[in-house]
């Protein structure tokens, strides 16, 4: 609740023309938005551009935010849509199949379950697998697993019902289980 009130206060100051207030907002959410973009897009440079674009869009559209949901839900919505637009523009699915290691190429020898859990390759494996999911499933599972949003918050962010959120997350996990296969 306090975080929500803090955001409202910052937004009021930004609307009054305070750039330091907007910078404070950027610093508050930059890691969350960048992390979300990395898992939505995989490529760090594209993710950085998408994250920057998210904040620029938020700045120009702040007057459209009416407080119907939490500010971070509104910001995540912009981020998800920006990432989906970026993906469509760059046809990243085709590129990622050529340049990123295929899920099958990730080594699974040795104590694979423990190794995956302990190493950074877990993130890379998940990123690669996420790129193979349909956009809607990927957005829902990233918001749940990486950002820890509730089903209701995910529904607000993606403008879908809680029932649809449940369904997408279940299907995403089933698909990831199939893609990550013997590594689980």
């Amino acid at each position: 609740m306090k975080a929500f009130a803090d955001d409202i206060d910052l937004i009021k100051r930004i609307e009054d023309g305070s750039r330091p207030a907007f910078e404070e907002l950027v610093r508050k959410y930059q890691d969350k938005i960048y992390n979300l973009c990395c898992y939505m897009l995989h490529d760090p440079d594209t993710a950085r551009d998408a994250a920057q674009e998210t904040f620029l869009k938020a700045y120009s559209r702040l007057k459209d935010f009416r407080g119907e949901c939490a500010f971070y839900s509104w910001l995540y919505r912009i981020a998800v849509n920006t990432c989906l637009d970026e993906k469509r523009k760059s046809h990243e699915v085709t590129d990622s199949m050529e340049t990123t290691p295929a899920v099958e190429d990730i080594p699974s020898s040795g104590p694979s379950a423990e190794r995956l859990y302990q190493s950074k390759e877990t993130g890379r494996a998940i990123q690669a697998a996420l790129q193979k999911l349909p956009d809607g499933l990927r957005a829902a599972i990233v918001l749940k697993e990486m950002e820890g949003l509730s089903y209701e918050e995910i529904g607000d962010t993606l403008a879908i019902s809680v029932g649809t959120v449940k369904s997408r997350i279940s299907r995403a996990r089933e698909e990831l289980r199939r893609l990550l296969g013997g590594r689980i």
Partner: protein
Amino acid sequence: MKCSQIRKMISPYVDNELAPDELKLFTSHIQGCPACKEELEKIRSIHQLFACAERFEAPLGFATRVMAHVEETEEAGLFSRIRRLFAIRPLFLRTLEVAFALVIMLIGVVSGNLLVGDRTSGNMTSGTQTVVRETFSLDLFQATPPDSIGGVYMRLAGD
């Protein structure tokens, strides 16, 4: 409850999103169903993988770059607004310039007429009239004005 219904509840259970009555049904089923329990463990493993995955932090200077873009965008917006204003204005300005020139010319003509009219009217003394006539006379532009050396010579030559 059927296993097919329970399996739909596995993800919400892992995410603590089950309503209390659903939770009761789910846990009692899971306790007695190895197949559903195995499904639950597989979904939990996916959930745990994400928990161990790297959390990316924004690159150094990210906020500074965003603010720089904000400033650039605002300046560009202001510049384009000014440019649009100047793009429209030359036509308007040209019209204004022509109108202004015409007005100045008109003022010049009217004031000149008034000045000449005033000076050559009956209000002036004859001496003043003579001066005005001579001032506005084109005799000044003659090759040999009467009171010039040439003019004197021409008179003498004519005599």
